[in-house]
């Protein structure tokens, strides 16, 4: 038992070490640049965090003017929820074909799909919102469309990754069956991925609720404009109250969606 067992650790080839070396060098270089080129000096603000937090999350409950606005805030929030819901639903459905197109294991033209998705994600959501305001006018509908197309970018990517990780051996059965390509997708792939798709779509809904606030910037509706205006005014009581409402509502959604998703997967 004391004899030393000599098993050579498998030698990694020189190409392996070259790769590791290059990767390490690139990473170190990136961090070097990031750390030296960014102005990381911290000056601090004369404003005490305590006072700000108090104004944000405590004072609103004693501010008559803010309290009086709570119903209208909930109205905005409801609009945001509706925008996000309609947008996410459209996006999560349209993302399915693109997701399949972008999945390397089912699509010959996966790179096309991936490029489309990357292009959508590279497009700033605010630009989408502007375009849709121009196309369909201001208001929630523009927000729905912007959210919808924006969701395609991320959901399509996540979907394609799910598709890429499915059990391919099942598909062989369909080949042996004489089933058509579409049938193979419908019976062989879709059942395997539906729960994950649904789960990601629900997850995306949460994100969309939050990102629809940005759309308020161009008049695409929801709670975005009021909260940003309040922030610009440094009316922290109002900001705080709206934040609390958003947090409350998103937490409820999170709670429900976690339960739904647990049952799905």
């Amino acid at each position: 038992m004391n004899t030393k067992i000599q098993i050579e650790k498998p030698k990694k080839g020189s190409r392996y070490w070259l790769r590791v070396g290059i990767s390490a060098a690139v990473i170190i270089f990136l961090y070097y640049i990031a750390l030296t080129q960014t102005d990381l000096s911290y000056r601090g603000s004369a404003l005490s965090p305590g006072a700000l937090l108090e104004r944000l999350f405590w004072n609103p409950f004693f501010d008559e003017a803010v309290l009086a606005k709570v119903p209208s805030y909930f109205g905005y929030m409801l609009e945001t929820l509706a925008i996000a819901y309609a947008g996410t639903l459209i996006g999560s459905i349209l993302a399915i074909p693109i997701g399949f197109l972008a999945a390397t294991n089912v699509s010959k033209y996966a790179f096309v799909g991936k490029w489309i998705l990357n292009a959508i994600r590279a497009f700033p959501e605010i630009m989408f919102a502007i375009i849709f305001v121009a196309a369909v006018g201001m208001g929630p509908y523009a927000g729905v469309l912007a959210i919808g197309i924006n969701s395609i970018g991320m959901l399509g990517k996540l979907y394609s990754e799910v598709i890429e990780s499915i059990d391919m051996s099942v598909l062989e059965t369909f080949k042996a069956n004489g089933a058509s390509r579409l049938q193979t997708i419908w019976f062989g792939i879709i059942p395997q991925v539906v729960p994950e798709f649904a789960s990601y779509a629900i997850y995306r809904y949460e994100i969309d609720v939050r990102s629809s606030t940005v759309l308020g910037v161009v008049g695409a509706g929801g709670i975005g404009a009021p909260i940003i205006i309040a922030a610009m005014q440094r009316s922290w009581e109002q900001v705080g109250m709206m934040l609390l409402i958003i947090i409350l509502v998103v937490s409820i959604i999170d709670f429900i969606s976690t339960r739904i998703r647990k049952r799905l997967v």
Partner: protein
Amino acid sequence: ACGAGTTDEETTDPVETEEAGEAAPEETATEGEEITEIRMGFIPSQEADKIADTVKPLEEKLTEILGVPVRAEVMIDFVGLVEGMRTGQIDIGFLNPFGFVQAENRANVEVLVKAIRRGEDSYVAQYVAPADSELESIEDIVNTPGLVWAYADTLSTSGYLFPASQLADMGADLTTHFSPLVVGGHDNAILALIDGQADFATTFDDARDVLEGDYPDVKERLKVIGYTEPIPNDTLSVRGDMSDEWKQKIKEAFLAFNDDEEMIAVMNEVYTWDGIAEAASADYDVVRAVFEKFEEDLAN
């Protein structure tokens, strides 16, 4: 400088039209164009220190006066508004002077009226410095090289364009004389002074008010050391392809507010307007002139 307004009864009087649309809940009022709904984009000007996030009272009043439903949406950025006006999706836009100049180029909008604030149809930008600063006047700024200059962003009329133009005229080389600190908002510019990050800031007059909630003593801490020349106030514009009748109608509706205590109060609340004056594109030549100086730099 208040225009004569029509009375409410006149405008709400139904006017027969040949093409009264089926969809129109109420009668439309022109022969030339069928408008069943007026859509109004509303950008709270950064230059105002108090903005309401709702324009409901204004919506209601205009609906009453114009006889068609008016819907207003609040937004932060004017790009969407201008694009909407260009494509005919938005009829009325509240635009700041710089936004209007841009919008006229891009979307061919037409200015109808402009704001009166504190009895003036223009405002100024201010130069602010810490109370204990050596800087006492704009000349001091021009004479001291290397100052850190905080401003909201390069497209802000009062934050950058007008002061920059003034400083350039007074002989400062904008590219070398200052070290600029772009901070995203007028409040941040003031904040940069309070935090000692900048030597002076340029903002609208008086951005310090916004900070009073956080820093009650802001006015003691910071002093105003100068002002720019007047900048024409923000506008109310309509899309260019609107029929003249409607332009007229809208213009009159707004001008009529001058005689209506209640509406002036509303306008004051939502936009700190305390009067409304007729405006022409030429009023904004001064903005155009300033912008042209920088246009080249900004575009590249």
